[in-house]
């Protein structure tokens, strides 16, 4: 073990923790939409409680990054790597908040039935969580090309959101009695749309890590 070797070891540990945090977030997002689908309020309460674990993970990792910056004086790629981790954990932590937000909607809905079967929301869930997973894989591989192509996929999530928005609008116009139920679903869809936006932020950080260039890849229409 060398001193620089020790820094590299800490870096690898941070990467593993980042992947672990990503898995926690993906799990929370998937569970929150399942709770919506299945009306499981107890599960929704657990998701809200578990969000504290994601928040804690973020603070722990941030502290590790700060210690490494203060004690190991990283420069160039090493420095950009730690800055990327600091930014990515913030994005992941906010995604966890969106999952908790969806779980809170389930709690608010109580016994109210869904105004329609869920079709596009599960699609958005699968798409956005897959984007999270692949963005973290791109980070591990320092793959800027994949990062760029993942950003492009945000348009698909936006399209699904558009579709849901217009569909729910039609419901509300036709039957104002559905306004509350439709608004709940709109919030859920918006949470998922924001998750995909935050994946593009992660991808921008990967590009910065690899190229050293800060770029705004695509601006969400919402």
């Amino acid at each position: 073990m060398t001193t620089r070797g020790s820094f590299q070891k800490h870096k690898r540990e941070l990467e593993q923790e980042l992947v672990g945090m990503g898995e926690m977030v993906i799990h929370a997002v998937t569970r929150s939409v399942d709770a919506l689908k299945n009306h499981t309020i107890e599960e929704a309460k657990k998701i809200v409680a578990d969000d504290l674990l994601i928040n804690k993970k973020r603070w722990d990792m941030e502290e590790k990054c700060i210690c490494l910056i203060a004690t190991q004086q990283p420069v160039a790629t090493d420095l950009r790597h730690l800055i990327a981790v600091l930014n990515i954990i913030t994005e992941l932590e906010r995604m966890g908040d969106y999952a908790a937000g969806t779980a809170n909607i389930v709690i608010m809905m109580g016994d109210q039935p869904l105004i329609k079967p869920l079709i596009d929301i599960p699609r958005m869930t699968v798409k956005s969580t897959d984007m999270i997973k692949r963005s973290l894989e791109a980070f591990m591989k320092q793959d800027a090309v994949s990062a760029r192509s993942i950003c492009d996929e945000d348009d698909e999530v936006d399209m699904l959101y558009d579709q849901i928005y217009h569909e729910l609008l039609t419901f509300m116009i036709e039957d104002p009695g559905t306004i509350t139920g439709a608004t709940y679903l709109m919030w859920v869809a918006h949470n998922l749309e924001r998750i995909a936006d935050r994946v593009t932020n992660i991808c921008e950080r990967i590009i910065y890590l690899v190229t050293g260039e800060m770029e705004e890849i695509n601006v969400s229409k919402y």
Partner: protein
Amino acid sequence: MKDVASKDKVITKELNLFYGVKQILKNVNITIPEKKVTAIIGPSGCGKSTFLRCINRMNELNPASRVEGEILIDGKNIYADGVDPVEVRQKIGMVFQKPNPFPKSIYENIVFGLKIKGLRDKKNNSAILERSLKDSGLWDEVKDRLNDSALSLSGGQQQRLCIARALAIEPEVILMDEPSSALDPASTLKIEELMDELKKQYTIILVTHNMQQAARASDYTGFLYLGELIEFDVTDRIFTKPREQLTENYITGRFG
């Protein structure tokens, strides 16, 4: 981030040191953990090197010096009556700022201390020589020229030879007084890498002007100022959220 569970190795209690009437160290209380690197930082003249020299009783080679208080190594006071300072120094190796090999062969430099200890078995001494040079990361570079003069080595190699010389007498604690301040960056990194390896077997106390080195290479850090220990803590803590304003001012370059 670093493992903090460790046995206490060196404890100083109310340590005071005077040169004539001038007090250099003032009531220094510190507990240094075993098999860790502990760095002592502070501005020039704060007493860092003096502190280090108290731990192997080297200060008393200066007749004007006077020590008060206790230094316990594994619970035994090295300043107690009847303790032989030569024995203390055998348990506590020291490496200085400038490499100071003897003007002898590489081989002789390492076995010198062994001979003083009365160890004259050539086979055994050769085994110790090989182990010491391997532990100091120098073996591969010198194994084919053990009879060459130590002075033919580069500065960085000479410093690692001095570390090997200290290791040969199987110390428990290694004191390093600015061990890389006379070396280039590559040799400095090698010394830091070496400390990281050596701490698996030895307790290392490092005095350094170079705060970045203390941050990189140590597990614990003590900040000395005007002979007083201002703060002592895990290195990560000292360099991210020191408790004392004086420490903050020093490590952020506001003085010193």
